[in-house]
């Protein structure tokens, strides 16, 4: 299985430490086209998530649901509801945790983000990284290929958004001046999928 209680916990533990290491970078990106808090927002939330013990949960779905609720309750800002909704929907679709279930979970998570945030690809948000990642995951054959493809598609999506004018979120107030700045949320989403590739793979699983 790709997603078990153990791998799910390893995933978010890894992501928490990556976020902590990248908090200044994320805040600095947000400083340039936003309000300089994306790093501290995500770090506050993921610290709370990292404090959850795997042993307290029956399965991956229960753990991931709690992680989503924890983000909703601790992050605030735009990223709290968006990341929280992503994980809550993800948890609801993670099923047996195999490759297809993981694909369905990612898709459900993306749908949740779209519904909550009403952004489209090209609006220069996390959706610009998440959408191609989910599509690449679904198109790939094996789990490991799918995870690798998702991570690299996220990175490409993040970079493709950099030259764009933002149309959602705080950066949209800048209009043309938002061009040529990397989006903080697309950056943190890419880190999430890179983290997934490190922790949810291993064909044997």
């Amino acid at each position, binding site marked *: 299985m790709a997603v078990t209680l153990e791998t799910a916990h390893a995933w978010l533990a890894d992501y928490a430490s990556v976020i902590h290491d990248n908090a200044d970078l994320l*805040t*600095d990106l947000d*400083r340039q*086209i*936003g*309000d*300089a*808090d994306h*790093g*501290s*927002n995500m770090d*506050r939330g993921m610290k709370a998530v990292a404090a959850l013990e795997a042993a307290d949960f029956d399965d991956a779905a229960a753990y991931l649901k709690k992680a989503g609720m924890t983000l*909703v*309750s*601790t*992050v*605030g*800002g*735009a*990223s*709290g*509801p*968006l990341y929280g909704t992503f994980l809550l929907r993800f948890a609801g679709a993670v099923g047996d945790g195999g490759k297809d279930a993981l694909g369905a979970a990612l898709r459900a998570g993306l749908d949740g983000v779209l519904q*909550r*945030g009403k952004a489209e690809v090209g609006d220069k948000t996390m959706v610009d990284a998440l959408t191609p990642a989910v599509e690449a995951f679904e198109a790939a054959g094996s789990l490991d290929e799918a995870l690798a493809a998702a991570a690299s598609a996220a990175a490409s999506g993040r970079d493709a958004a950099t030259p764009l004018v*933002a*149309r*959602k*979120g*705080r950066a*949209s*107030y*800048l*209009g043309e*001046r938002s061009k040529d700045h990397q989006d903080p949320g697309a950056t943190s989403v890419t880190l999430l999928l890179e983290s997934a590739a490190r922790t949810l793979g291993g064909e044997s699983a």
Partner: protein
Amino acid sequence: MKKLINDPGDVVADALRGVEAAHSDRVRVDHENKIVYRKDAPRQGKVGLISGGGSGHEPMHSGFVGLGMLDAACCGEVFTSPVPDQMMAATTAVDGGAGVLHIVKNYTGDVMNFEMAAEMAEADSGVRVASIVTDDDVAVQDSLYTAGRRGVGVTVLLEKIVGAAAEEGRDLDAVLEVAKKVNGNGRSMGMALTSCTVPAAGKPTFELADDEIEMGIGIHGEPGRQKKPLAPAREIAQELVDPILADHDFTGAPAIVMLNGMGGTPLIELYLMFGEVVKILEAQGLSVARSLVGNYITSLEMAGCSLTVLRTDDDLLKLWDAPVNTPGLRWGC
């Protein structure tokens, strides 16, 4: 970064201890949830009024809790909207049986967190919740293709006026009507002389040269519409007034005018700007019926100001003049 703080992560919690120490006659503070409550909330039969948002805009919102204004303010981290748990707790706590109005400034984060809270509060507790989203900032152009206009200065005037409507016993629908009227008839425009520094970020959000100003600034240190050379106050006043008057018809009705400081501007400059603004407004045929000059909705230590103009009528003026007793706004009692 030079600030009167202990640890950047504790700023909001530490400040709330000061709010409680200073105003325990009028408010109580739920430190765990970072909520400031009107001391005698819930008031039976009165529509409960809740607002909230990122911290760093004081006195908004925590300073507007009290008689004739808010029943609760949910305090987020600096410039970060509060989380749904806070709004849910506050909603349940202030409901006096007449429902609760959420006053939300139009920012993606605030809107989504309040939305989730409203969904959950109605589902969990059955409290009837209505929401008003303020979006008065004319600096945001093309608002159809963006997150929409930001909620700024009108939020202050709305909390006062809607607070009076709730205090005099109007029901939730009527209170919401008043809120919509205020938001629909108010416009704001701001500018900055300097940036602010978010404590956790440690450096200024944007850079400005010694002879530059930023026009169309928001209240989160987001960069504005355009950098421009520093100009005399009377020219800046003109640039604040013009887009407001171009966006809405303010003639033929009494206006409430707020000249608001962003946090780091001395009062003498705010009065000077107010004098310039009123001169222009009156030359354009506006009649300034009431005014507010001072720091009401700020952006940490940013230097600069914003102008808000609200078209009123007899009812709105009467509600404006009604007694209010909060740390940040007080008259009539």
